[in-house]
């Protein structure tokens, strides 16, 4: 044990001797890890946000299609769906998008009748009358309002209306509520000039999750102009989109990784005359090949682990504290560019482990192999230097 610690101590002091060279390697290594880890963290976090969103989403959303486009659905269709065996609740939902051209912000406006149980509040209450609204965090921050303040929205008739903020959303998933404004349903219909007897879509609850696909087919048969979308289908779409986007990013950054590997290989295989001489000295004064390899292992581990941890920390801060400023525009898509939202930290340890494996192990190998080649030769060459 003492031997290992002694060699570790020497390895660390050895690294300090070549400060500039090792610092340069750590910087390049850290940036490579930080970039790739940022993509992984961001993708994983968005996927996890999507899962959170879908946890609160209905089992099936039924939309109506007219000429291949989303149209309002008759509320009477809800009754037909409700009569199908296996279906629980069917809720007509009224919602729409609102764009504030001054702030250049996209919102989702949703109508509610009672207090929705799947949307936890940070503070305050849901809108109790046509003069109140409940806001997501992103909107509150964009307008600088809080409970009790007033918010002006311009309706479909181009008239401004003042709403009193009655509550703010808590954010387990910021993606879910960040850009959401709740109004009373009647007020929302007036706001968007939506006709009575029609809804934006129908939210269907299914008792047995394994029946979701079958019921979706039955709904399609019963209502041919409808488009039933299952929860897993949405999740799959999110997954595909994020995987595709992160795939593109990772392909781009693969060149960075390859450049790093070339650097590491060059550094390792091009063991300098000085390093060869040092290995010779160590062997001559009683170090055996294993001791030299242990020394090189500690050196490689110290550099690669330091750089990997720094890279992972920088990526974590970049993604979860600074909103992934460098990558978010590519990975998130237009609808969530504004208002700003902070991602909920979600890390896939398996991905992190693979990244560690793909960077630390090759680096250590690149350090050890050439040292081994030198260390297995007789040390008497040092006597002749």
């Amino acid at each position: 044990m003492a031997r290992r610690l002694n060699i570790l101590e020497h390895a660390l002091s050895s690294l300090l001797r070549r400060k500039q060279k090792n610092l340069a390697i750590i910087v390049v290594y850290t940036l490579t890890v930080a970039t790739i880890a940022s993509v992984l963290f961001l993708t994983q976090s968005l996927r996890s946000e999507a899962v959170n969103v879908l946890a609160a989403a209905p089992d099936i959303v039924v939309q109506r299609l007219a000429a291949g486009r989303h149209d309002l659905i008759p509320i009477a269709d809800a009754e037909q769906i409700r009569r199908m065996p296996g279906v629980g609740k069917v809720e007509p939902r009224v919602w729409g998008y609102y764009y504030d051209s001054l702030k250049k912000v996209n919102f989702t406006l949703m109508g509610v009748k009672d207090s929705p149980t799947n949307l936890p509040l940070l503070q305050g209450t849901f809108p109790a009358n046509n003069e109140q609204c409940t806001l997501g965090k992103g909107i509150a921050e964009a307008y600088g309002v809080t409970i009790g303040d007033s918010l002006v929205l311009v309706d479909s008739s181009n008239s401004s209306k003042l709403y009193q903020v009655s509550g703010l959303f808590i954010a387990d998933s910021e993606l879910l509520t960040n850009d959401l404004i709740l109004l009373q349903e009647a007020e929302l219909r007036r706001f968007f000039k939506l006709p009575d007897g029609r809804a934006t879509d129908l939210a269907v609850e299914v008792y047995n999750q394994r029946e979701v696909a079958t019921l979706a087919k039955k709904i399609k048969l019963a209502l041919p102009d409808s488009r039933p979308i299952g929860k897993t289908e949405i999740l799959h779409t999110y997954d595909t989109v994020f995987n595709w986007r992160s795939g593109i990013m990772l392909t781009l950054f693969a060149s960075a990784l390859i450049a790093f590997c070339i650097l590491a290989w060059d550094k390792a295989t091009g063991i300098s005359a000085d390093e060869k001489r040092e290995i010779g000295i160590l062997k001559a004064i009683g170090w055996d090949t294993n001791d030299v390899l242990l020394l090189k292992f500690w050196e490689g581990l110290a550099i690669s682990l330091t750089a990997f941890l720094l890279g992972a920390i920088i990526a974590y801060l970049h993604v979860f504290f600074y909103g992934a400023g460098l990558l978010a525009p590519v990975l998130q898509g237009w609808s969530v560019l504004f208002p700003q939202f902070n991602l909920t930290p979600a890390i896939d340890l398996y991905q992190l482990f693979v990244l560690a494996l793909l960077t630390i192990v090759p680096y250590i190998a690149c350090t050890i192999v050439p040292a081994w080649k030198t260390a297995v030769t007789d040390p008497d060459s040092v006597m002749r230097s």
Partner: protein
Amino acid sequence: MPTLIETKDLCKIYNRHKPDELQALSDVAFSIDQGQVAVLKGPSGSGKTSLLSLIGCMARPTSGSIRLADKDVAKLPERFLAELRRDLFGFIFQQFNLMRELSLFDNILLPLYPTEISGKEMKSRADEILRQLELGDRKQQKVKQLSGGEQQRVAIARALINQPEIIIADEPTAHLDRALTEELLTILARLKQNGKTIIIATHDPAIYQQQELIDRSYLMHDGNLLEVERL
């Protein structure tokens, strides 16, 4: 005193079966008793360093035997040879072979790192040797900042830190002036008094003419040990 090192029919050929093959040693018979000082004289390229390398377990002979305290070490696996180099030998090289970017103190500790000796014990040993060689006040200085004489003393300190039985010195005065050579001779005499066995390769008369110090004198020429003088 018992014979500590004995070689028989020792041959060393470098780059064997290659165009630049070189016979460095031919049938060398060398011996030294415990506590003696032996000197290998001879011009450059005569095979002194090759013989020291083989005796010091840094290389393997092409043929012949090397008996160290009555054990044949010529065919031992590398890790045993490394152990012998660490536990039995202290080396003083012609070019000092110090790590220039390390401090004097860290250089001295190098042979002890791959041992089970604790950090505290290592440092106390190093402090003691530095005190004996009057280098205590400079221990944190980098080797590259030291004079030639000081570097020589650091090399000696490193050779002694593992408390070796045998000290091998290859042209130890090659880079020293007369005063520093005198200083080295004093140190070697002290080591002899302490019972160390010392083998010195040199062509410096200031060393090989030290009759009080030298017990055996060998002359090497073209890889042959031509003459043995027992003083």
